[in-house]
């Protein structure tokens, strides 16, 4: 039982990182109907920035202060990167057929991956130990470590901030309007380009935070690390219902939990296939995702 609880805690920690990445996918899909394949690589850049920032900038800082600075650096770099990607690669194709944007997204993703290999080197790097691991408290035999506590805390705070932005602010309202209809929102004066840029910046910052959280939990970072988590986070977004923010959260947690259970109780070799089996099952049973609703085409 205590083992099961421990697996659950580990799964929730992984799941909240998936959820952070999945939120970026779901928001971009919401406003542009585009699978941003480069999102997983933005998360990789977040982890890489964390690695360099952790080693270079924060060397003199006390242990407690280093982590927030590194997190802020990664989020800032990823925010700028997300803005640039949208501006340079996706905006010229805003009105092009969907397939062209998808291919561009793959191109951007490959560019970041292999550009990253040239820039950072292909070998894995060891993330600096920003948070010294130490068991904090115990529930029914399951130990929650300091790193996991930080992951939960950061993920919760960021999601609360995101929820506040989307629900309470003018920009959030504009985002929801754009995801409802491009044309209608422009007619009532919503600045489409600004809203789309803002969505990319927001989503990329969350991915950057996810990168740093992965770095402290699992300290090997390398340029191709974003591919699998990116795909799984996308599957998590589809599981929850793509375009739906609470859905991305639920999908991410579900994905993290089921993966940890499979590794713990079945075999680690099936870990990478699980996400896609889940995807195909969910598409068979509930194509709109758990929280989504299927919409039929109108002419």
């Amino acid at each position, binding site marked *: 039982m205590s083992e099961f609880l421990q697996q659950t805690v580990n799964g929730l920690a992984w799941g909240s990182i998936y959820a952070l990445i999945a939120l970026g996918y779901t928001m971009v899909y919401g406003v542009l109907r585009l699978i941003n394949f480069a999102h997983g690589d933005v998360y990789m850049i977040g982890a890489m920035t964390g690695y360099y920032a952790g080693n270079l900038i924060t060397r003199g800082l006390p242990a407690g202060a280093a982590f927030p600075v590194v997190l802020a650096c990664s989020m800032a770099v990823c925010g700028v990167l997300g803005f640039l990607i949208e501006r340079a690669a996706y905006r010229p194709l805003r009105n092009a057929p*969907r397939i062209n944007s998808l291919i561009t997204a793959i191109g951007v993703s490959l560019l970041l991956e292999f550009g990253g290999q040239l820039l950072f080197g292909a070998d894995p790097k060891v993330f600096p130990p920003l948070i010294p691991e130490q068991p904090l408290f115990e529930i029914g035999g399951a130990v929650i470590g300091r790193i996991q506590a930080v992951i939960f805390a950061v993920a919760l705070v960021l999601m609360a901030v995101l929820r506040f932005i989307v629900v309470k602010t003018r920009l959030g309202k504009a985002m929801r309007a754009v995801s409802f209809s491009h044309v209608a929102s422009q007619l009532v004066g919503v600045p489409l380009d600004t809203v789309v840029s803002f969505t990319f910046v927001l989503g990329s910052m969350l991915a950057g935070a996810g990168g740093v959280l992965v770095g402290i939990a699992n300290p090997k970072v390398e340029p191709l690390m974003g591919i699998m988590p990116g795909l799984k986070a996308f599957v998590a977004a589809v599981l929850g219902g793509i375009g739906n923010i609470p859905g991305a959260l639920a999908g991410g947690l579900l994905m993290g939990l089921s993966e940890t259970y499979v590794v713990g109780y079945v075999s680690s070799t099936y870990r990478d296939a699980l996400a896609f089996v889940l*995807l195909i099952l969910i598409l068979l049973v509930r194509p709109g995702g758990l929280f989504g609703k299927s919409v039929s085409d109108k002419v």
Partner: protein
Amino acid sequence: MGILRKPVSVIAAGILACWVVQEFATPWINPYHLQILNTIGIAAVMAVSLNLITGHTGQFSLGHAGFMALGAYASAAFTVHLNPDALGLVPILPDWAWRPLFFVTALAAGGATAALAGLIVGIPTLRLKGDYLAIATLGLGEIIRVIVLNLEFVGGARGFTGIPESSNFFWIFSALLVLTVLMARGVYSLKGLAFLAVREDEVAARSVGINTTRYKVLAFVLGSFWAGVGGGLFAHLNTYLHTNSFGFLKSVEYVVMVVLGGLGSITGSLVAAALLTLLPELLRIASEWRMIFYALLLVVMMILWPRGLMGQRELRWIRRVKP
């Protein structure tokens, strides 16, 4: 004029020509060049078959290498484990007759396996919009990889060795010829217009009575079948298989071929398959820049030149038959 008028005689003449080249010309070709030529042929089979799914029908598949892997493993398992020697049988037919027959059966088995997988994945995902297909096919590639790594009778994680070297110039280019002629015949026929209609506008296609899901699944299953055949040819050319040869990047390479050639142009796929197979050979020195070059090519091409080399045009000999 045009190969579409008399497909049977064109195929027969072409296969004969391939046989003549195989028998009389290949011994004089530099083995390295022959290897490149054969690689181009297999890439062309993959590109033309993917073009049916992505170019003509407008469905974005990112798992073409996965279907290729299925075909490769299935046909290799067929020739290794089900050949008459392994089963302890003596073929009734003379050697020169049953060997080609056996190889064709193996290729067909590979194609059929891939087509079956295509059907299973295609039916749920093709009811939805194209994006889901991309991600589901990508996932399928991953599922196939994990399953193959756990299957001992195809070598598991060590890779599959000891596949007979049955594939050669004759087989590869005959397959390519058959595929090209059938594809041109099919897509540019009156019924084939339904594929193009699905690509252009699904809602409009449905409203004129086209069963869009049926045509999407049909294109997907046929494309997967030929990807499986391509995989079978690949397996029996290299005589060794490992799942690493069929990763996501391989699928992307085929997508790049189709897009560079022009979505919906068979000629374009052929040209692009040749170009993009030759290019890395010429750029061997700059190998680490190759993928960056690919990536930039994709982005820049989509922005500046979204229709590819040929657009939707074809060379004259492959053009539509006037009714």
